[in-house]
């Protein structure tokens, strides 16, 4: 009986330490963030702060420089661009690597994963140099083919696209890794069956491989989505959200309000909004994941 009780308690005993760590480093910061979002806390006043209710949310939502709608729109465009770009590049490379021998695949996989392991700040500054209108590689290459210099990080549309390209380069590695792992588990006989039936490789990919790795693909998509949503360091290194807030995402807005302006309350309010969006995405993911899981089990 004692053994039975101990047996039932074992999972919780094993989970106790991780749960404690999660409480300290996840839930407690969440609670503090929620608390600060309803206060007039500043960087110089973190204790005995006045309660302001929802005023911080009102201020953030009604701000006109930048407008919160534009911050949301920029975040959505940047996130979707990162998602689609990472999925396309990561999956494309994984499929290409799937066609070569295991030895070559391992070597190339290590090379392709290099950007993913480099600090985003370093990647940001590297791409900033690449886009430098005076001394950058991008304009030098354009100049070689007779195209005039482009202000990569100044014009809103171009700047946002330039950031997406840099972020895709920084983040496609996780998609490549996840999809490569899934491809290794696709039964060779179903691919062989397709080949026997005379299907082209493109058709096999579309009709056989991609459906077979769909749950994993969904996970890769979610990781890329959340990665895009939360990107801060790379954008900060490249544009700091400027000029004229043209590349200001929610993560940058959080930082600007919190660290640059020292308004902890308003920064926390933006955090809570981003938290809510991420929570909605997470719940959506779990629902889809459960549906897909039921289909495949």
């Amino acid at each position, binding site marked *: 009986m004692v053994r039975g009780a101990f047996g039932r308690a074992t999972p919780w005993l094993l989970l106790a330490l991780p749960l404690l760590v999660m409480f300290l480093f996840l839930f407690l910061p969440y609670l503090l*963030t929620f608390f600060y979002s309803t206060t007039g806390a500043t960087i*110089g006043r973190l204790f005995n702060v006045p309660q302001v209710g929802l005023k911080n949310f009102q201020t953030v939502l009604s701000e006109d420089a930048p407008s919160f709608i534009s911050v949301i729109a920029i975040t959505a465009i940047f996130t979707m661009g990162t998602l689609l770009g990472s999925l396309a590049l990561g999956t494309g490379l994984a499929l290409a690597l799937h066609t070569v021998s295991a030895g070559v695949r391992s070597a190339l996989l290590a090379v392709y994963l290099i950007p993913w392991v480099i600090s985003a700040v370093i990647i940001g500054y590297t791409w900033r140099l690449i886009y430098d209108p005076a001394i950058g590689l991008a304009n030098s290459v354009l100049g070689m083919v007779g195209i005039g210099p482009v202000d990569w*990080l100044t014009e809103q549309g171009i700047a946002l696209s330039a950031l997406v390209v840099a972020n895709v380069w920084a983040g496609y590695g996780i998609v490549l890794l996840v999809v490569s792992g899934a491809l290794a588990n696709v039964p060779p006989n179903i691919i062989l069956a397709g080949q026997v039936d005379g299907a082209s490789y493109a058709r096999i990919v579309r009709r056989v491989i991609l459906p077979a790795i769909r749950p994993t693909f969904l996970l890769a998509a979610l990781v890329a989505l959340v990665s895009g949503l939360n990107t801060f360091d790379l954008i900060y290194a490249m544009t700091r959200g400027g000029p004229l807030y043209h590349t200001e995402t929610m993560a940058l807005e959080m930082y600007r309000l919190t660290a640059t302006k020292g308004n902890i309350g308003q920064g926390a309010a*933006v955090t809570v909004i981003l938290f809510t969006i991420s929570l909605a995405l997470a719940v959506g993911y779990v629902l889809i994941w459960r549906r897909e899981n039921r289909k495949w089990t």
Partner: protein
Amino acid sequence: MNKRLLALLSVMVIVGGACSPAATQAPAATGGAASQPAATTAQESATITVWARNYTVEEGRIQPWAPDPKSAFEAAHPGVTVNLAEGVGSTDQFNRIELSRAGAVEDKPDIFQLDNIWLGQFVDEGITANLDSYYANWADKSDIVPAYANSTIVKGSQNAVWFYSDIRLMVWNKDVFKAAGLDPEKGPATWDELFADAAAIKAKVPGVSPVEFPASSEESTVDRFYSYLYMTGSNILNADNTKAAFNDAGGQKALQLYVDLVKQGYTPKAVLGETADDNIAHVFSGKAGIMLATVGDGLGSLPDGFDVTKFQSTIGAALPPLCTGCQPASTAGGWMLAINADSPNKDLAWDYITRVTDGKNMVPFEVDRTRIPVRTSGLAEADAFKADPYFAQEAEAAKVAHFPPFIAKYTDMIEILWTGMQKAINGDLSTKDALDEAATKVDTLLAP
């Protein structure tokens, strides 16, 4: 249960990612700077903790803090030691001082270095100790150049001691000037000459930006603009610092200079994403011809491969060029030292500050970093500054230098101003509309 647990963990990991930047990044960048506890209460065995900027405590370079002032101070006060804590960058310095005041970090400085533009805010927040009684009995106070000594008075009291200053000069690349057929030893003295030189560079030196200035979303954008604003007779705020003044005719004229340079293709629109550091790097590398204003003559930010001789043969420096009917003007910035209002060792801190800021002690550091002395005794050391080829120009600029207003909401105000400038430079609004819009916001910000 497994599925539920997995789902729960997924949600926590995903949402955790969402919260991490705001919840942890900003404070993490600022904490942990000092390595020693704050001073104790007993003066006989006290530690004076100093929070300084990174380059003033850089190993292998001349420091104003040590060895002489530190050893002399410690010899004069047996049992008292000076703890020069890790130096940090400008933003981190601001944040760690604020966080220390908020009680969010355990370390507390006795002495801290502050940018002149923070003084108003720090006084307002009660971070700086009132130094009136120390100034009253300080023989050396008359050695401080009066304009500087007066600038540390906020709300009628002395709150800081000037450490060193810097001044804004226009710089140009002599190689670019030669390639454009211009006299490399003579920079533009007027706006008309500026446009003429820019036209020559544009015509004869392809691939080079004729003129650059910072216009990105950060402080150097407004700092490098002020000299042009001041020379028109305009100002940033009115006399009692309660309303914007930068949107008058002079302010519009100054901003129109920037707009015209971009419109006429002499300055790339990419400056909207560039800081002053980017500009000066372009001038040093010959990718830009003229930078409208930089700190000193640029000697303090020499890139690898440059020594003073190469610097002098490559870079020219002079006062910012003048518009018709304008008066010579420059902008002074710089750093001060203050005593923490909570320090239990104010007398000791004051003694150390007076030793460090002594005119003669500061000169080697100021020469090394091309900073401007704030002491008459330092300025008298002309021979020492011969190592700086453009010290004469800097001294000339110091005579016509203006300070930005030391107000509590300065950092909020300049964000409004640079956003207005960007709108005009980007062509979104006319200079008048952009500055009027910014002025309205500044007036609201400064309203009691």
